[in-house]
C-alpha cells in the first residue's frame, strides 16, 4: 500500500527536528542556512514552547576566565561528581564541545537575531556555576522574550513548522532512522515524515514523579521545575527505536518547595553568587546536613527541627533588585502571584521541605558522541535529550553544533527507505486509544505510575520495595496500557505521553534494582557502601527486538587530541 493511502499526510524532508524549543530552533535555523529542507515538529507552539517559553532563570555554563580543559574538569568534579559521587557520568568530550563552542554559540545566536546581551548591550556574566573563585561562568538573559524571536528566526529561513503535532515513534530500517510517525493533537491527522536525519530536541522527563508542591488534587501539571509538559517523549521514542539511553537510574532530586508557587525558587541561591540563609522554625540556622542530604530532612522532622525556610532578608537593596529581575525572567506570573498571596520576597521566608526525586535531565538521556550522534544511524539528540547536556546553554550549543554539521551526513546518505509495514503497525498503535470505550483516564494511569516511582523507588531505595514496584508496574501495564481512552486528539496526545512515561519508569526502576550500591545521590539503603565494580561505570539501556537490554558501560574520557589542541593554543 502506498504511504499516502496509510497516512493523512506525508512529508518529505532532509532534517526532522523533534521539538521546537531552545535546542530545536537554533539547530533548524543553522541547518536551513546550509541549504537543507528542515521540518520542526512541535507539540505546542514554537512561539511559547519548551523550557524557555515562559522564561527561565539562567544561561550557564561558559569557560569564562578559565581554560576549556579546566572548565571540563571543574564541571565534572564540582557538579557531576559533587551530586552523583565519584565516577565519569557523562561523555567528557561532550563537555569539551559545550565549553569549546559556547562563545561561538552566543555569537551565532546574536547573528541569528536572538538577543543574548543584557539591556546595556553587553553580556551579563555572573559568578557561580563552576563554583570556582573568580570564574564568571553564568550568563543572564531575558529568556521570556526569546521564543517568539526564535520562531521568526526559523520561519525567515524557510523552516517548516508543524505546531500541535506529536511525534509518536521513529521509523527505522537496518539501524538507520528513516523518519517518524506523528499525530496532529487537534485534528487527529496521522502524519508520516520521511527524513534523511532526525534530531531529538524534546526535553527531559519529570512526569513519572509528583510535582514539588505536594497538595494538588486536580492541577497535576503544576511542577516548579521548568515546563510540566515534559513526558520524556524524546527519550522514549529513541529507546523504542533501539538507541542507547544512559543513567536512567540516576534521577535528580531536590527539595519539595512549598512556597515556589509564589516566587520561583530556582534563582535565589544561585545566580548572583550570594547565598540565601536557611532557618528552622525557631529562627536558628541548622547544620546544612539537614537540608542538603537526602536522609537529612527526614531526620530533622523526627527530631522536631522542621520546617526550614530560606530567607533573603539580609541581602542589600541592589541585590534584591537584581533578584527581582531574575524572578520575572523565570516565571511570568511571579509577581502577580506574590501580590495575590501578599507575599513580599524581601521580607517573607520561603518554606522548603522534604527531599524528593524530581526529574531526569542532565546526565540522563540518549547516549551520544560529541557530535551528538546516537547509536542509531542518522539519529541525533541535543539539549536535555542528550546524556550530558542540560539547560538552555546545552540546548543552544548542541543544537547549533548539529545544525552546523548535519548536512555532511545528509549529503552522504541517500533517500530514506520507509518500511510500510512499520508505518502500518505504528498507525494502529497510534490511533488505538481513540477507539477505547469505558477506559481509564490518562491522568489516573499517570498518577499510578508517579505513585510507584515515588513510593517504591523514591530516594531511599531497597530491593524489596523496588520488586514490589516492578510487580505493580507490570500489573498496571497489563491492565491499563491498552485501555487509556482518548475522547479526542487532545487526549490522544496525553495517552501517548503516558505510554512514554510508563516505558521510562520501567527503565528507571530496573536500572535502580541493578545498581546494588550507594554512590553520591544514589542511595540504596540495603547496600549503603560504594561498590568499586561500579567505579567509572554507568547504566546503558536499549530495546532490542522488543526486549529491554541493560548493560553496564563506560562513558568516554576526554580525547588526547582535544587536550593537545588546547595545549597548542596556549
Amino acid at each position, binding site marked *: 500500500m502506498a504511504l499516502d493511502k496509510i497516512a493523512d499526510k506525508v512529508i518529505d524532508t532532509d532534517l526532522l527536528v523533534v521539538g521546537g524549543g531552545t535546542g530545536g530552533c537554533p539547530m533548524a535555523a543553522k541547518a536551513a542556512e546550509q541549504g537543507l529542507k528542515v521540518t520542526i515538529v512541535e507539540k*505546542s*507552539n514554537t*512561539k*511559547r*514552547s519548551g523550557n524557555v*517559553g*515562559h522564561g527561565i532563570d539562567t544561561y550557564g555554563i561558559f569557560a569564562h576566565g578559565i581554560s576549556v580543559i579546566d572548565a571540563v574538569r571543574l564541571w565534572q568534579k564540582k557538579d557531576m561528581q559533587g551530586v552523583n559521587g565519584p565516577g565519569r557520568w557523562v561523555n567528557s568530550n561532550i563537555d569539551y564541545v559545550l565549553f569549546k563552542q559556547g562563545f561561538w554559540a552566543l555569537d551565532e545566536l546574536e547573528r541569528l537575531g536572538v538577543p543574548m546581551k543584557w539591556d546595556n548591550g553587553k553580556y551579563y556574566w555572573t559568578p557561580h556555576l563552576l563554583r570556582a573563585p573568580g570564574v564568571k561562568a553564568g550568563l543572564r538573559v531575558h529568556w521570556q522574550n526569546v521564543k517568539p524571536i526564535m520562531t521568526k528566526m526559523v520561519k525567515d529561513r524557510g523552516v517548516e513548522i508543524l505546531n*500541535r503535532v506529536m511525534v509518536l515513534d521513529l521509523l527505522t530500517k537496518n539501524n538507520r532512522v528513516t523518519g517518524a510517525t506523528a499525530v496532529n*493533537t*487537534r485534528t487527529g491527522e496521522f502524519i508520516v515524515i520521511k527524513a534523511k536525519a532526525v534530531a531529538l530536541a524534546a526535553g527531559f522527563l519529570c512526569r513519572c514523579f509528583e510535582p514539588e*508542591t505536594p*497538595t*494538588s*488534587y*486536580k*492541577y*497535576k*501539571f*503544576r*511542577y516548579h521545575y521548568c*515546563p*510540566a*509538559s515534559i513526558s520524556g517523549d524524546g527519550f522514549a521514542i529513541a529507546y523504542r527505536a533501539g538507541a542507547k539511553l544512559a543513567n536512567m537510574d540516576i534521577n535528580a532530586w531536590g527539595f519539595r518547595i512549598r512556597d515556589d*508557587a509564589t516566587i520561583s525558587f530556582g534563582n535565589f541561591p544561585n545566580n548572583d553568587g550570594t547565598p540565601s540563609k536557611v532557618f528552622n522554625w525557631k529562627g536558628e540556622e541548622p547544620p546544612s546536613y539537614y537540608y542538603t542530604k537526602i536522609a537529612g530532612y527526614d531526620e530533622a522532622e523526627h527530631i522536631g527541627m522542621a520546617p526550614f525556610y530560606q530567607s533573603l532578608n539580609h541581602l542589600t537593596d541592589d541585590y534584591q533588585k537584581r533578584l527581582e529581575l531574575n524572578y520575572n525572567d523565570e*516565571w*511570568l*506570573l511571579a509577581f*502577580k*502571584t506574590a501580590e*495575590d*498571596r501578599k507575599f513580599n520576597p524581601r521580607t517573607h521566608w520561603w518554606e522548603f521541605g522534604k527531599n524528593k526525586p524530581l526529574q531526569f535531565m542532565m546526565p540522563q538521556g540518549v547516549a551520544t558522541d560529541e557530535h551528538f550522534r546516537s547509536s542509531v544511524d542518522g539519529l541525533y539528540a541535543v539539549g536535555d535529550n542528550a546524556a550530558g547536556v542540560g539547560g538552555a546553554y546545552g540546548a543552544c550549543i548542541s543544537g547549533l553544533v548539529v545544525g552546523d554539521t548535519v548536512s555532511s551526513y545528509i549529503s552522504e546518505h541517500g533517500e530514506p527507505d520507509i518500511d510500510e509495514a512499520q508505518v502500518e503497525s505504528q498507525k494502529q498503535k497510534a490511533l488505538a486509544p481513540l477507539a477505547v470505550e469505558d477506559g481509564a483516564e490518562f*491522568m489516573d494511569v499517570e498518577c499510578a505510575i508517579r505513585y510507584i516511582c515515588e513510593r517504591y523507588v523514591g530516594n531511599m531505595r531497597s530491593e524489596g520495595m523496588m520488586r514490589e514496584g516492578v510487580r505493580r508496574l507490570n500489573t498496571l501495564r497489563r491492565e491499563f496500557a491498552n485501555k487509556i481512552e482518548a475522547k479526542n486528539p*487532545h487526549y490522544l*496526545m496525553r495517552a501517548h505521553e503516558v505510554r512514554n512515561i510508563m516505558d521510562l519508569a520501567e527503565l528507571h526502576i530496573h536500572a535502580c534494582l541493578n545498581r546494588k550500591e550507594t554512590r553520591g545521590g544514589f542511595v540504596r539503603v540495603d547496600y549503603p557502601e560504594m561498590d568499586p565494580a561500579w567505579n567509572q561505570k554507568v547504566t546503558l539501556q536499549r530495546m532490542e527486538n522488543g526486549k529491554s537490554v541493560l548493560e553496564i558501560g563506560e562513558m568516554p574520557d576526554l580525547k588526547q587530541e582535544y587536550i593537545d589542541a588546547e595545549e597548542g593554543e596556549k
Partner: protein
Amino acid sequence: MAVVKINYSNCIGCKKCYDLCPMDVFTWDEEEKRPVVSYEEECWMCGICWMDCPKRTIDIRLPASNW
C-alpha cells in the same frame, strides 16, 4: 473557583491564547468566535495567556491546593 478565567466582555477573539498555550488548555468555539477553557485541570499556571492576551482579559489564579 476557576484557575483560568476569561472575561468575555473584553475578549476580541484574536486566538492568541488558543494558539500559544503550551498545555493546549483552550479550544476554539467557531460559532461564538471565542476561546473556551476546555482542559482547565491541565493548566500549569505559566502565565503565557495572561501576558500575551492583548486585552489582559484572562486571569490566572493559584488554586487552593497550591496556595
